[in-house]
């Protein structure tokens, strides 16, 4: 059987590896090189300037604003999504139809979600102000995306809205594999529903929750599409919704500062990596095995 093995392997692997090398691997490697230059896309030979791009980043008010806003998203979004999703997952036990509905936003492109919510937040004809008026809360009406104090929170709400359903499904699937006799035994021993959830269910589904922390943490460093589509500028009133990805996009494709933009990309990469490692460590628990 073995003859022709290497011919087969070479024939099978050459196209996918070439594709991966050209479009994925080489850009990633080049990004690190470019980040040390001041290339503007025109000069044939980019000039090497060492770490200057990186030191400029720390005095670039726009990038620091992006960093701050992504930091706020990182603090708020994963916690809110996991809390809401755990509560809803526990509550949907036995009523699956809710999960079918909750999951739907997961299927929509973030661009479509952004356009939809831009309509919802529109001051005069939007759903949100319309709903507030219908409830007799006219004084609560706002130009949601135009007020610097509110715009970023409006974006964060959309991030939460669009992510919760996926984690409801993920967590409720994990909860279904928790054997009923354990939770029932605990209930007979006098544990209330909160205690059962905290001491039994949560440890047994922790692996799913950990996945949630890491994915949501990484996603919180993005926000590009929502901000770019929903908020004016883009970047919001007074740059109140600026995010790092938007700064990168603008530097590269509006101002042709490709070296500088690559330095932002490298920074985003190291931040993403650190967040993932940090969350992995912080959320590590003794794995609970069911015999």
């Amino acid at each position, binding site marked *: 059987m073995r003859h022709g*093995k290497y011919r087969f*392997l070479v024939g099978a692997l050459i196209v996918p590896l070439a594709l991966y090398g050209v479009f994925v691997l080489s850009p990633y490697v080049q*990004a690190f090189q470019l980040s040390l230059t001041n290339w503007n896309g025109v000069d044939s030979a980019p000039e090497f300037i060492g770490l200057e791009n990186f030191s400029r980043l720390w005095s670039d008010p726009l990038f620091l604003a992006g960093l701050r806003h992504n930091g706020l998203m990182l603090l708020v979004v994963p916690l809110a999504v996991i809390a809401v999703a755990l509560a809803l997952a526990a*509550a949907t036990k036995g009523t699956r139809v809710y999960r079918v509905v909750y*999951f739907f936003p997961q299927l929509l492109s*973030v661009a*479509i979600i952004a356009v*939809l919510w831009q309509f919802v937040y529109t001051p005069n004809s939007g759903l949100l102000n319309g709903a507030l008026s219908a409830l007799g809360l006219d004084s609560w009406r706002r130009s949601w995306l135009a007020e610097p104090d509110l715009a970023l929170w409006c974006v964060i709400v959309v991030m939460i809205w669009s992510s919760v359903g996926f984690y409801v499904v993920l967590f409720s699937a994990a909860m279904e594999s928790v054997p009923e006799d354990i939770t029932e035994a605990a209930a007979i021993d006098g544990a209330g529903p909160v205690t059962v959830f905290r001491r039994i269910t949560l440890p047994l589904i922790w692996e799913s929750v950990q996945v949630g922390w890491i994915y949501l943490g990484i996603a919180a460093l993005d926000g590009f599409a929502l901000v770019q589509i929903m908020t004016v500028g883009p970047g919001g009133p007074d740059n109140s919704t600026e995010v790092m990805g938007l700064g990168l996009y603008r530097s590269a494709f509006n101002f042709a500062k490709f070296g500088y*933009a690559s330095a932002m990309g490298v920074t985003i990469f190291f931040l993403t990596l650190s967040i993932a490692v940090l969350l992995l460590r912080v959320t590590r628990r003794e794995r609970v095995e069911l015999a």
Partner: protein
Amino acid sequence: MRIKHAVLTLWAALVTLPLLWAFMSSFKTDAEIFDSPWTPPATPRFDNWSRAWEQASIGQYLFNTVIVVGGALALTMLLGALTAYCLARYEFPGNRLLYYTLVAGMLFPVFLALVPLFFVVDNLGMLGTYHGLTLVYAAYALPFTVFFLHGFFRSLPGAVAEAAFIDGASHAGVFFRVMLPMARPGMVSVGIFNFLGLWNQYLLPKVLNPDPDHYVLAQGLAELAVSRGYGSDWSGLFAGLIIAILPVLLAYVFFQRQIRAGLTSGALK
């Protein structure tokens, strides 16, 4: 109990209301949209939909998306399965290195690659072309596909393949006729995952696909919404939004169990 159902209903309303409202608005006139966001249209304006489809090019964008995503999906599944199979079932020097190099692609944020990728695609003369976007989509979907299917091919029993080899089947024959059919459940899961991921792409086309005639659906809709700003053809934009949502909604209605299972199993891998 009552509180529980109230909470569940509240979230269901939060999810569905914006979508239903957009659906209703897509049949209203601009004036009706501005007068009162809540009132249904006096008469349903189907011309909003045809205006979105033709004048706002949503039909063209849908066509572009089908071409690019269809091509990229077929390419990803074929190459991904082939790569995963070779790395999972054959011993050869460098096997582990190749596997980890490929899978490492999942760890990097696309933002890191964005600038050089733009120039790679530009230098190949592929900016704003169907084939350029198709190849890039396939390349970026490859790491996860290989990762997912690698585990799948590993877990398949070897006896059937051995028997086929003894019967004189070639290496390619064993892959296409024996192993690939056995890997069908895994292919379906990762196929759904890739389809939705590619269909919903925004960042890559935004950078690599500047030609308005070749815009994909999400990108085209976002450009319409951003460039028109306040006060122009709102009803047409609502109709475009609903047209963009409908294909995914229909797919979900028919395959909702498989879609949820496919997406969540991808996350836990």
